[in-house]
C-alpha cells in the first residue's frame, strides 16, 4: 500500500495550486443564489475555463485535461484549500455531462459540453415534481410527439439553480403508464431552454430566503429531437446513471470537507474553550470524518474508476452527515455570533448543509439502497 503522490501527479497538483494562488478572488463573491452572485460566479467559471481548470477530468477536446480520478481529487483539495468560489456550473458538470458521455451523441457532446465548460450555459436539474419526490417514477409531466420534436407539459419543482440558469434537463412521460406497463418505462430524458416560449420559472426561497431553487411550469414547450438524450421512452436508465453521480464522489469531493475541517480546527484554536471536552470531541470527529472520506476516495481512485451504484449511496450518507457535523460544530464554536446570518462563511454553508440529507435522493432512500443492494436485505414496499 502506498499513499505517496507520484512526481507527475504532484506536478499537476502544484500547477493547480499555483494557478489558484494567482487567480482566486481576494474577497468572497456574493452568494451564488442571488442575481449578482450568480453573474459573478459565472464569470469565475469563464476564468477557470480559460486555463482549462473548469472540468479537469474531461477530455481535452471539450476543455478538460483528461485528469485521472486521483488528479481530480487532488485538484479539488487544492481548489477548496485555496478558498475558491462555489461552482455555479456543478449541476451540468456533475449530473448532465456524465450522462452525455455515457448516453449522448457526438453531436450533443460537441454542441453542449464546451459551453458548459466555459459557463456560457449554466444548467439546472428538473427531476422532482409536486407529486414525485423520493418516488421519482411517479412523475406526470409529459412529452408529446410533435413534428420534429416534442411538446412538454406539466410542472417540475425544487429545481436547483433554475432561478438564474439558462437550460434544464429532466425526465418526461412520453408513453402513459397504461400503455408502457410500468412506471419506469415510457420516460424520455430531455433538455430544454428555460427562456423558451411556454416556460414559466417561479423562484422559491430556501430557508434563508435566497432563491436557490425554483418551480418550472411547462405549457406546450417545443423541444427538437436533437435534445433527447438516449432513446425516447428509455430515459430512466440514463437518469439513474446520473443519479449515481449526484450521490457519489463527484458532486461533493473530499477536498471540500478537508478544507472545512481545517477551517474548523482554526476556529477551535481561536475560540475553543479547552475545558469544553464535548465540543473538542466534535471538532475531532469532523476532522476524522473528512480524513476517512479522503482515504476512501484514494482507495476508489486506486481501483477501477470511482464508486458507482449502491456504493455511491454510502458516500452520500457520509458526506451529507459530515457536512452538517462540520457546520453545526462551527456555529456552536461561534457562540452568540453563531446565529448571525453572516456568521463568517459558516452560516450560508450551514443552510446549504441542511439540504444535504434531502437532495440527490433522501438519506432514507440511500439507506434502503445500501440495505437492499449491498447487504442483500429484502426489498421493501418502496418501488
Amino acid at each position, binding site marked *: *500500500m502506498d499513499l505517496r503522490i507520484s512526481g507527475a501527479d504532484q506536478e499537476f497538483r502544484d500547477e493547480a495550486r499555483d494557478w489558484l494562488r494567482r487567480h482566486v478572488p481576494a474577497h468572497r463573491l456574493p452568494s451564488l443564489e442571488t442575481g449578482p452572485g450568480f453573474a459573478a460566479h459565472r464569470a469565475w467559471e469563464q476564468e477557470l475555463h480559460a486555463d482549462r481548470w473548469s472540468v479537469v477530468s474531461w477530455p481535452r477536446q471539450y476543455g478538460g485535461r483528461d485528469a485521472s480520478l486521483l488528479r481530480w481529487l487532488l485538484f479539488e483539495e487544492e481548489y477548496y484549500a485555496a478558498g475558491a468560489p462555489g461552482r455555479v456550473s456543478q449541476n451540468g458538470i456533475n449530473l448532465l455531462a456524465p450522462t452525455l458521455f455515457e448516453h449522448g451523441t457526438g453531436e450533443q457532446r460537441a454542441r453542449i459540453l464546451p459551453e458548459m465548460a466555459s459557463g456560457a450555459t449554466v444548467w439546472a436539474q428538473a427531476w422532482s415534481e409536486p407529486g414525485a419526490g423520493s418516488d421519482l417514477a411517479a412523475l406526470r409531466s409529459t412529452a408529446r410527439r410533435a413534428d420534429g420534436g416534442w411538446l412538454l407539459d406539466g410542472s417540475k419543482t425544487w429545481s436547483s439553480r433554475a432561478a438564474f440558469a439558462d437550460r434544464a434537463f429532466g425526465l418526461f412521460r412520453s408513453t402513459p403508464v397504461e400503455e408502457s406497463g410500468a412506471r419506469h418505462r415510457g420516460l424520455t430524458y430531455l433538455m430544454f431552454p428555460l427562456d423558451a416560449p411556454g416556460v414559466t420559472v417561479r423562484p422559491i426561497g430556501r430557508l434563508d430566503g435566497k432563491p436557490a431553487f425554483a418551480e418550472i411550469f411547462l405549457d406546450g414547450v417545443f423541444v427538437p429531437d436533437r435534445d433527447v438524450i438516449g432513446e425516447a421512452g428509455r430515459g430512466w436508465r440514463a437518469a439513474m446513471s446520473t443519479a449515481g453521480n449526484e450521490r457519489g464522489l463527484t458532486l461533493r469531493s473530499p477536498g471540500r470537507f478537508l478544507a472545512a475541517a481545517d477551517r474548523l480546527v482554526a476556529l*477551535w484554536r481561536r475560540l475553543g474553550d479547552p475545558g469544553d471536552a464535548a465540543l473538542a470531541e466534535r471538532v475531532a470527529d469532523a476532522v476524522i470524518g473528512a480524513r476517512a472520506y479522503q482515504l476512501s476516495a484514494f482507495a476508489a481512485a486506486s481501483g477501477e474508476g470511482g464508486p458507482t451504484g449502491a456504493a455511491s449511496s454510502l458516500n452520500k450518507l457520509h458526506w451529507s452527515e459530515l457536512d452538517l457535523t462540520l457546520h453545526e460544530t462551527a456555529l456552536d464554536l461561534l457562540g452568540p455570533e453563531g446565529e448571525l446570518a453572516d456568521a463568517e462563511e459558516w452560516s450560508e454553508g450551514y443552510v446549504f448543509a441542511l439540504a444535504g440529507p434531502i437532495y440527490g435522493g433522501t438519506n432514507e432512500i440511500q439507506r434502503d439502497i445500501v*440495505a437492499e443492494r*449491498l447487504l442483500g436485505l429484502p426489498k421493501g414496499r418502496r418501488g
Partner: protein
Amino acid sequence: MRFLLDAEQRGFAASLDALLSAADVPAVIRSRAAGDDAPLRALWRRLADVGVFALAVPETYGGTGLLPVELVLSCVELGRHGMPGPLAETFAASTLLESVGQTALLPGVASGQVILSLAAEGGYAADPDLADAVLRVGEGKAPLRQSLDPARRVGLPEDAIAVESGAERATGLAALCTAALALGTGRHLLAATVEYARTRTQFGTPIGGFQAVKHRLADVLLQLDFAEPLLYGAAVALQDALPSAGSDIAAAKAACGEAGYAAARAALQLHGAIGYTDEFDLSLWIRRARVLRNAWGTPSACRRRVLAGRIDG
C-alpha cells in the same frame, strides 16, 4: 499512490480466513473461559505456522520485521473470527523485547511458542496468565481478574518487566492492532446479523424487510466502511514512519472502536433475547466489542489525540 491491498496480501488474508473458519474458534473461546488454555495455545501455534506472529519480530530473530499493513489485515481476520488471547499485546511487546534485553524470547514469539502481554501506563495487561512474559509501560501491580469478555482476564503481575524506551511506538502499535480487531469483530457481527434478519420472520415476513431494521444495519455498514480506510491509512503512516502516525492511529482507533461497538449494539438489538444469552456464540463477539472499543485508547482519548495532533502539528 496505490491504496489497495495487493494480490499477495489478499491471499494471505484468505489463507487466515480459511484456517480460522475450520478451527471452531467459539469452542476455543469457551475452553479458555472454562480454564482450559490448551486449544487456544494450539491454534496460536497454527497461526504462527502461517506467519502471523512473525509480523512484528525483527528479521534477525526469525521474523519479517515490522509489517504494519500485514499486521492490520491479520488482526481484521483474527477479530472477525473471534480469536482470543493477547494478540495486540503480543505484537506490540514483540517490538520491545530487544530494548528490555529479552531477545531470547523473540524466536519463540515468531514460532508461536511464546505469548506476550503488555500493560499501558495506568492499565492492566491482557491475559497475563497466558503470557510467558509481561511488559509494563508504567508502574504498579494488580491481581488477575475476569473481563466482561469471557475469554479475557486482566491484571498486572509483580514480575512484569518495565519498559524504558520505545513505549510510545509500541502502544501505538497495540492501538492499531486493537482497532483492526475491533473492525473485524464488527464485520462479523454485521454479517451474522444481516443473515439473521434475512431468515428470522415475525408478522409473517423476514424482519430484514422492515425499514427500522434495514436502516440500522445500513448505518453499521456505513460506519465500518469509513473506519476501514482510516485503519489502513494509519498502517501506511506507521510503515512510512510519518510524523502523523500517532494521530492517524488515534483516528483509526476511535472510528474502528465505535464502529465495532455500534455493530455489537445493532447485533444484540436485532437478535433480541437470543443475542442476550451466554450460550449463543454471537454473544462472544458482542461482549468483546465493548472491551476492544476502550482498550489502548477510548474513543474520547483518541479524539483528544487527533485534535492535539492538528493543533500542535
